[in-house]
């Protein structure tokens, strides 16, 4: 079956003074894919994501989301896109319900209150809805970030290390929930992480970027076979990561 292209990045270039953060990269992500976007620190992953969100203007290239040009249709596109990163939290002084209500309005979610209730139940957070964000544990904050990211039932979800520095239990639960929701809602996900176990669990396609260039792509197993050894039967992204980062 020929799946629709949700995200298409063509010849993207971004320089910060003399530093080339993104060096002419092109890729496309199909509907329903969970795309692992890997690379060492400073490889250009976050810059690419910010370009996709329209928060950094590329020097060259084109980004199309749902077949529309990002530059001219950003607001319209973003109603069907969402983003989460462990680096950015929701306002500390508001409680969970208030925060999610603000974002439901920002994303123009129809029946916002019902959607919030639904998500809080899925993430087992209903009993905490009146709790102020600063009083939540780190794991709970991650779950609330994911609730916020799923509010508008995004067709494209950008997750930039959403579970960074979480314990394995939190990551495991988060991954299972995400996979379940992604399947139910046929979401397309672009996921970055430095935790290779996390990526192996969630991603069905990988794009590896280093020094702003795409250096490898494929399924986790294909990538392992390409980079490490042809006879590999299990993906080993950790070794792939080390090999590609050092080469």
């Amino acid at each position, binding site marked *: 079956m020929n799946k629709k292209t949700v995200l298409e990045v063509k010849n993207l270039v971004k320089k910060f003074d003399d530093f080339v*953060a993104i060096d002419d990269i092109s890729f496309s992500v199909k509907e329903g894919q969970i795309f692992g976007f890997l690379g060492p620190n400073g490889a250009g992953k*976050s810059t690419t994501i910010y370009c996709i969100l329209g928060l950094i203007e590329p020097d060259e290239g084109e980004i199309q989301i749902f077949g529309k040009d990002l530059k001219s249709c950003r607001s319209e596109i973003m109603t069907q896109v969402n*983003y989460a990163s462990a680096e*950015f939290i929701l306002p500390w002084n508001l409680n969970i319900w208030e925060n999610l209500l603000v974002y439901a309005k920002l994303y*123009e979610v129809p029946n916002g209150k019902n959607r919030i209730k639904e998500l809080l139940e899925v993430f087992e957070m209903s009993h905490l809805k009146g709790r102020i964000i600063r009083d939540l544990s780190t794991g709970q904050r991650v779950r609330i970030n994911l609730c916020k990211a799923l509010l508008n039932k995004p067709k494209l979800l950008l997750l930039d290390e959403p579970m960074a520095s979480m314990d394995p239990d939190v990551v495991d639960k988060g991954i299972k929930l995400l996979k379940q929701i992604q399947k139910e809602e046929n979401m397309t996900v672009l996921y970055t992480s430095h935790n290779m176990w996390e990526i192996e669990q969630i991603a069905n396609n990988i794009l590896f970027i280093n020094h702003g260039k795409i250096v490898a792509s494929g399924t986790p197993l294909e990538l392992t076979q390409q980079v490490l050894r042809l006879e590999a039967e299990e993906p080993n992204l950790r070794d792939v990561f080390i090999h590609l980062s050092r080469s």
Partner: protein
Amino acid sequence: MNLKRVSAIILRHFFLTMHQLERFFDVIVSPILVLVLWGFLSKYVQNIQSSTLASFLLGGMILWVIFEKVSTDIGVNFMFEIWERNIINVLASPITFIEFISALLIISLIKILIAFTTMLLMAAIFYHFQITALGFGLVLLWINLFIFAASFGIFNVSLILRYGHSIGPLTWILPFFVQPFAAVFYPISILPPIFQKLAFILPISHVFEGMRYTLKTGQFDTASFWIATALNVVYIFASVGFFVYTFRKVLKSGRLVKLI
């Protein structure tokens, strides 16, 4: 109390001040400006013995608060999004930056309407000062003040965008740079000639001149109103233009995502 830890924090702020020269404004420039302001006021009080003086001072203070609060509130609200590490989540949503700034303006408008009403009531109850004696003219003065404050607030946000939240303390201080020349508590004529020229190009000084004229004569100062309005048109276009220019620059340079 552990004095070592206390001194470490003092040292940390000393280093911070060394790296952020705008912090000196808090310490030195702001007190100087207050001194200049009250100096001019003293001179004016020496020259005038009028029953309307109290009205001028109270009216000036009440209208000044509109300008000061609105102009700082826009910047402070913007900085709150940065302090709470929420700005990227907000800007990654469908909202445009213009919508975001408009929302900040509306928040300031609502807050100042509440503050203004409270001040009017208190002035009437405790000082028997009826600023409503200005009649419909009060609304016109108010609109001009709000527009100038909004221009100022937008300029402030542009500076934060460009230089980051370390420039934040300027948000509170910038209005006081204007105050001595805005003829809030004294007429433009009391200022030295060079400052009179400066006052003339500030819409706010014409608002205060208009307020005093109306309180003194009971008639609306049409000339001051139109001069203030014309200047406001220039200022609002200039501040929005500067903001759009800065926003495009920070999108290009990647500073927008480095605000936190």
